[in-house]
């Protein structure tokens, strides 16, 4: 399965969510996960690596092994990317793309994705540019994720703009802000973090299961 995290606006939390979803699927479901980070030399994932030599020009060359997921950092898609993805699909259960906010890159990757998380923040600019982007995407694959949600924009309003329900609204959360300082995704240093309830909701589309249930689900089943 191929999942992509996209947004035409930077800083919305795509990398944070892709890192934590990848690690969550590895930790709790033991999936073979490959995270393809298209942010190149600006990648946050460089924090987890001890060496920064990159060899090869194929997507499946020189994949880095971390305890949380396997990792490939690129600054552009190679021309062979469709063949390379077919290679990788035979090895990995889940391939997650963290997509740099470049329109061509987003369109190319969204075409090969099974699930597209369109990540927005509750501000008008984020809504505006991503609504424009949404017109070019296969809408059936898209799930709207409102990250850093602070109720400044009503979720119903956001749903109206996209003519689609918001799949997940993730409030500001300390763990999602500071996990980089722990040098590990949240699942690997704090299994009880409330942030994982939201990651679990994202993972539900992959696994069909919920591990982290809300309090009403726990009481009423």
């Amino acid at each position, binding site marked *: 399965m191929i999942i992509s995290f996209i947004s035409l606006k930077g800083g919305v939390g795509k990398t944070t969510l892709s890192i934590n979803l990848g690690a969550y699927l590895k930790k709790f479901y033991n999936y073979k996960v490959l995270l393809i980070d298209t942010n190149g030399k600006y990648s946050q994932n460089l924090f987890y690596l001890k060496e920064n030599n990159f*060899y090869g020009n194929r997507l499946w060359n020189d*994949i880095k092994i971390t305890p949380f997921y*396997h990792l490939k950092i690129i600054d552009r898609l190679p021309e062979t990317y469709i063949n390379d993805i077919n*290679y990788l699909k035979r*090895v990995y259960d889940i391939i997650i793309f963290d997509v740099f906010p470049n329109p061509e890159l987003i369109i190319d990757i969204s075409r090969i994705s099974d699930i597209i998380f369109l990540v927005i923040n509750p501000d008008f600019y984020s809504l505006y540019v991503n609504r424009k982007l949404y017109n070019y995407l296969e809408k059936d694959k898209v799930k709207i994720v409102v990250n850093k949600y602070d109720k400044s924009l009503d979720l119903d309003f956001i749903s109206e703009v996209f003519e689609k329900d918001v799949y997940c609204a993730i409030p500001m959360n300390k763990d999602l802000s500071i996990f980089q300082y722990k040098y590990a995704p949240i699942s690997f240093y704090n299994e009880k973090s409330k942030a994982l309830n939201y990651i679990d909701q994202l993972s539900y589309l992959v696994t069909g299961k919920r591990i982290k249930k809300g309090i009403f689900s726990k009481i009423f089943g």
Partner: protein
Amino acid sequence: MIKIERENESFTTLDGQKLYGIQDLIIWLYNCSDYDFKYHNDRKDFYNWIYYSLNERDLAEKIININNKIDLIKILDDFMKSLEIYNKKKISDEEAEVEFIKYI
């Protein structure tokens, strides 16, 4: 080492792919034809590369008599999984800031 230190130590396969480490080899094995596998395996190419270029002598000895692609993948996979062990390290916020400065 799980990958080469110099680009000229890469392994070039019969079908023209360049492999830079054990993970590349695993992915190639998943996708290669039986003919390509047999060609390299019969010549001990995998053994020689892992032994001499990657200096993983114990691993090379484990695969020397393997003639089956699936068994080879399993041995290499198990080897790579042993590298995925996470050692939880407690660091204070001050230590984290010092570490962070090094990146800048």
